[in-house]
């Protein structure tokens, strides 16, 4: 199968859907002629023109609120935040309007809006350009949250986002954007709420999110040489969250680590841990472990930045500790 990058895969999903659905339009800063800070829309302006690739002033609240009104009236906006950090000025529109209007209108109004942005720590981007924020959108009812880690998943999940009628956060880790992977030329979609078992194993289960998925896979390949047989699960969407696949794996392995770059407190790991506790307490042979980035704003200096994110050594240690429990 041909290999393309993560960004190319997501862009393919977008351009293919824009070709078949004239109600899709994209807003963002520099997503027009320039093609997006991360090349998310490269070449699309030439095809679809300024009404559908709409460069905006720096008004995140304004264009998100505007896109809510557009989604309510027959079009499908895609908001391209560039860095997801810029989403924060629009939280009122997101949490009080976009997530609630389907409910408040008893399903008579749809809210087909895709909110995409680049997440994660890396490249000394410092604290205003390194956020992730997905646990917030899992906590609040009304959002779908997609967090693909491969080009294949990026394309398939974005297609689903662009054809569904719900608000979707589509989050792309900055260190994944240029990774290549196999993506079929044929049309496909990936359903939300279906985790990928990225690696089968029987000694322990690692649930790994976003950039932690390739990291965990690399670590587990190393650990296999030590005789450790680890299962790696990438949930791919956090809302809905495929607990079935995770529980099934834990029933098999009895041990669970959740590896997530962003903050631990009230995070995804906490939620998965609590649910496994509730559903599968007796299957556990060891306490569930969480591995998270430090609970701190992101520092700039490489010496500090690398100190706050779990690296391969930390992942390997967490897995060894878990298996040793």
């Amino acid at each position, binding site marked *: 199968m041909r290999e393309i990058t993560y960004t190319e895969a997501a862009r393919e999903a977008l351009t293919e859907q824009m070709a078949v659905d004239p109600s899709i339009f994209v807003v963002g800063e520099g997503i027009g002629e320039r093609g997006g800070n991360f090349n998310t829309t490269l070449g699309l302006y030439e095809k679809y023109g300024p009404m559908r690739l709409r460069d905006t002033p720096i008004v995140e609240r304004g264009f998100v609120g505007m896109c809510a009104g557009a989604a309510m009236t027959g079009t499908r906006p895609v908001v391209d935040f560039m860095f997801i950090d810029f989403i924060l000025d629009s939280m*009122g529109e997101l949490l009080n309007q976009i997530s609630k209007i389907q409910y*408040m*209108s008893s399903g008579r109004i749809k809210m087909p809006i895709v909110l995409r942005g680049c997440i994660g720590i890396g490249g000394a981007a410092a604290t205003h350009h390194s956020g992730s924020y997905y646990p917030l959108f899992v906590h609040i009812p009304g959002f779908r949250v997609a967090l693909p880690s491969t080009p294949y998943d990026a394309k398939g999940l974005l297609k689903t986002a662009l054809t569904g009628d719900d608000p979707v956060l589509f989050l792309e880790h900055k260190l994944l954007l240029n990774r290549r992977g196999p993506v079929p030329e044929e049309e496909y979609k990936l359903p939300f709420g279906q985790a990928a078992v990225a690696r089968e194993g029987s000694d322990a289960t690692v649930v790994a999110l976003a950039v932690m998925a390739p990291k965990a896979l690399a670590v587990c390949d190393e650990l296999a040489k030590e005789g450790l047989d680890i299962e790696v699960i990438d949930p791919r969407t956090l809302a809905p969250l495929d607990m079935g696949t995770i529980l099934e794996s834990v029933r098999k392995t009895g041990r669970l680590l959740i590896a997530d770059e962003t903050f631990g407190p009230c995070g995804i790991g906490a939620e998965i841990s609590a649910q496994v506790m509730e559903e599968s307490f007796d299957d556990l042979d060891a306490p569930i472990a969480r591995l998270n980035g430090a609970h701190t704003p992101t520092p700039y200096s490489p010496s500090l930045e690398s100190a706050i994110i779990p690296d391969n050594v930390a992942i390997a240690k967490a897995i060894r500790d878990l298996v040793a429990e």
Partner: protein
Amino acid sequence: MSSDDITLNSQQLLPLYRMMALIRRTEEQLARSHQMGLVPGPCHTYVGEEAIAAGVCAKLRDDDVVFSTHRGHGHALAKGVSPRAVAAELFGKATGCSQGRGGSMHLFAPEIGLMGTSGIVGPSILQGAGAGYSFKLLGSDQVSVAFFGDGAVSNGAFHEGLNLAAIWDLPVIFVCEDNMYATEVPFREATRVQDVAERASVSYDMAAVCVDGNDVLAVRQASEAAVARARAGEGPSLIECKTYRTRPHAEGMRDGGYRTDEEMAAWKRRDPIASYGAWLLENGHASEGGLEAIEAEVNATVDEAIEFARSSPFPDPATASDFIFSAGV
């Protein structure tokens, strides 16, 4: 009362009167119901401001859309939502326009273009602009209307929303209902520049007028021009309506201190319904009997709506979490 619009005949004039009377009667009955404990949540009435909703919505089609505020009963009624559906919603009943999910501040009837009232100040402006974006992208001649109070004018949503609508020439009508207060904070303390229309034109280069919001014909005329502009693809407009609410900010709230008796009395003398009624009579567009008949019909309709609301069932608790997501995914 002043109107240059000589083309209006009684077929157009009397429905304006009826709509204002309908809003007034509905509000008064809702206020009474609130006092009786029949409205379980908050209730912000539109009494004194009826001319704005009636005047603006008179020029809208069913497929034009309206985005409204916490003070939205009048907008809902003027857009065509029945008094039954509004009253039942405030009573928290399954027969309400939001099936009991919304209450006073969350009225929805998208099938006739009422895209929602909002308990949060500001979003109506942005969503109104967004509907305009849809219509422009889809090549439709529909028009979008955003209502908001003077309280929203200092908010960032006003600035961002007006600017976006202006630079992209969106078919949107921004209707500012300046009733001089945001709860008890006077507009003159919220800003040094109270002229909203001038701001819209100077800061955003938008077609903007300031009208007497208690003069239904003046509002209607401004709306007519704005709707025509929007439908013709000539971009957004702002209509600033100077008005006054003659009841407290919300039912059950104390109303003392921030407004003088004289101010209140002066505005009551300028009641939009009474003054329009007088103008209709003076100009031979209606007889006393004619207006009384309208009022009687309205009163009966509203009283029946309240009874409908009272006797309707509460929603089934088992449905409390329905409709968060579309069925589609």
